């Protein structure tokens, strides 16, 4: 059997009045059953768009202009609306950033949960309620019977995110896409939610794509990381290896910018400049204007992902082997 999810050369464009903007430009990665992948990058790098593209739910001016998303052996970019709805929320679930916003304020938790099940399964309301209760227990909500009859405003933020996760789990999906699931929560709750997600994935062999800009969260939970910059994956590989010795200058910049890598009281590192907007992505390597290592090829040729060591590590940078990247980072 092949991979659970295989994204091949995915391209997403937004048709605007001033022309077409390429938000995702040839993203490829694979995910196996039970594997956890982190998609990391700054705001606007295309992480969330990638997530939405996987379930084929890019909103209006945007569309998938090329590439494939092969889920469980089938290319799902070509499926009909009807067939796609059957996969969405059923075999692939998604968890969003802000649990305050993702629950409908005027419906009880019970209604929202059973509704999802009834949309996908041919079961009675009572059976749906039983499954809802079971999932609420699974995400450790106390006295779920009582909670089913309550409205979203009667829950705390962490509780709400648990409920959102329970809703995502209802149909026993094979893949969960979590789009910054803990950004709106405080740090202690964050850790709880991440532990919970990891546990659930391990128990049921679910795949997880964790979209975040928080490297700490990613390093705890995922096995592999893909770093995105301006609509492309610039580096991918095992989590440990990337956090310990990043090869792409952008990843290095990100990791050096973490407060932990500096002495107390010192200035924090930052990557100079800003991520380019989609309207003016520089020619060649999109990162070259901000890159310390840039050479003459960088503003002319687009670098492609290629293997750089035995750890299944792939980097899209012209300068990786010619420069002394390994040593400079191990010192830092």
């Amino acid at each position, binding site marked *: 059997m092949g991979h659970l999810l295989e994204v091949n050369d995915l391209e997403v464009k937004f048709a605007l009045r001033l022309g077409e903007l390429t938000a995702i430009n040839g993203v490829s990665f694979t995910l196996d059953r039970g594997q956890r992948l982190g998609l990391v990058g700054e705001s606007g790098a295309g992480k969330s768009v990638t997530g939405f593209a996987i*379930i084929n*739910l890019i909103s209006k001016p945007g569309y998938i202009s090329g590439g494939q998303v092969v889920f469980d052996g089938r290319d799902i970019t070509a499926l009909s609306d009807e067939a*796609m*709805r*059957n*996969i*969405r*929320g*059923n075999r692939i*679930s*998604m968890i*969003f950033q*802000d649990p305050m*916003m*993702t*629950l*409908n*304020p*005027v*419906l009880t938790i019970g209604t929202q949960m059973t*509704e*999802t099940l009834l*949309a*996908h399964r041919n079961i009675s309301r009572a059976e749906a309620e039983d499954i809802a209760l079971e999932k609420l227990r699974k995400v450790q909500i106390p006295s779920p019977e009582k909670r089913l*009859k309550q409205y979203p405003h009667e829950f705390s933020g962490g509780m709400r995110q648990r409920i*959102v996760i329970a*809703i995502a789990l209802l149909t026993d999906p094979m893949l969960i896409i979590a789009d910054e699931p803990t950004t709106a929560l405080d740090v202690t709750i964050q850790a709880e939610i991440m532990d919970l997600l990891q546990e659930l994935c391990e128990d049921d062999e679910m795949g997880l794509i964790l979209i975040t800009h928080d490297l700490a969260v990613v390093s705890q939970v995922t096995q592999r990381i893909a770093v995105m910059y301006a609509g492309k994956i610039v580096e991918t590989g095992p989590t440990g290896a990337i956090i310990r010795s990043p090869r792409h200058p952008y990843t290095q910049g990100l990791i050096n910018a973490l407060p932990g890598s500096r002495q107390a009281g010192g200035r924090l590192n930052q990557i100079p400049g800003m991520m380019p907007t989609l309207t003016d992505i520089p020619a060649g390597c999109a990162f070259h204007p901000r890159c310390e290592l840039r050479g003459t090829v960088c503003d002319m040729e687009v670098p492609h992902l290629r293997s750089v060591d035995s750890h299944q590590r792939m980097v899209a940078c012209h300068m990786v082997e010619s420069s002394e990247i390994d040593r400079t980072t191990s010192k830092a």
Partner: protein
Amino acid sequence: MKQMWRRFQSSYLLYSFKRDRIAMVSLAVLVVLLLVGIAAPLISPYDPYDPGNIDIMNSEIPPAWMEEGDGAFLLGTDIQGRDLLSTMIHGLRLSIIIGCGAVVLQAFLGIVIGLLSGYLGGKTDAILMRIADIQLSFPYLMVAIFISAIFQVAFGIGRYEELAVPLLVVIIGLAEWPVYARTVRASVMGEKNKEYVEAARVIGLSRTIIMVRHILPNALTAVMVISTIQVANAVMSEAALSFLGLGMPVTRPSLGSLIRSGFEYIFSGSWWITMFPGVLLVLFVLVINLLGDWLRDVLNPKLYKG
């Protein structure tokens, strides 16, 4: 059920209702009027539709407390000798039926069209909203004259008297649906970009379910508020149509037709035929509007606790 009752008891709605004396009085008056209207055949002293009760010799008797009054007719009689009180009670009943019926029709049309227009957007929206604009630019009186004229020619005046109630419901209902459609569309457009709608799409729910189950309940506040005002408006429209002779026939008078039938005799001294139905109409519309005002204040989150 019990839980819902408890929820209601501790709600802000009830709390602010108890503190607002105008709202309480209005509701009390409204409830009394509604009960009187619903129970009209049981409580009115005479049946004004029964020709056997009408004696032309009794016409234009003033209210009971006046010199020439007759104890049998508390508020006097109209020009045909019908007991004015009974006729008013039945007229109120007709006004309530027509008002509520028209609003139900308006709300149904307006909500469906507003929901589709707001959620689907694009061309559907443009077409539906232009239809609404066109509809609003026809004065409802003109539409009413047109429809009832055609109807009377097509089916004869006899049938018209039987079918006047549903006909008025349709006329007034059709005339005002764009008010609902616009309000619903505006709130749907505000709601549809919220994340819970996105989440519902991600869950794989169909468009219809998302529209009806998720967006509509969130847009209902506005609908509730305009509904009260629209009931008052519909009652007024019906009265106006009847006053112009386009509404309820004199044999089954609504409040409007009663006002009209008395209007011609007001200067010959029979003021009561116009006066009492007029006062009743004003009272009915006033309490509905007062309640609507209160509801708008309570449901407006910007004024909440303000």
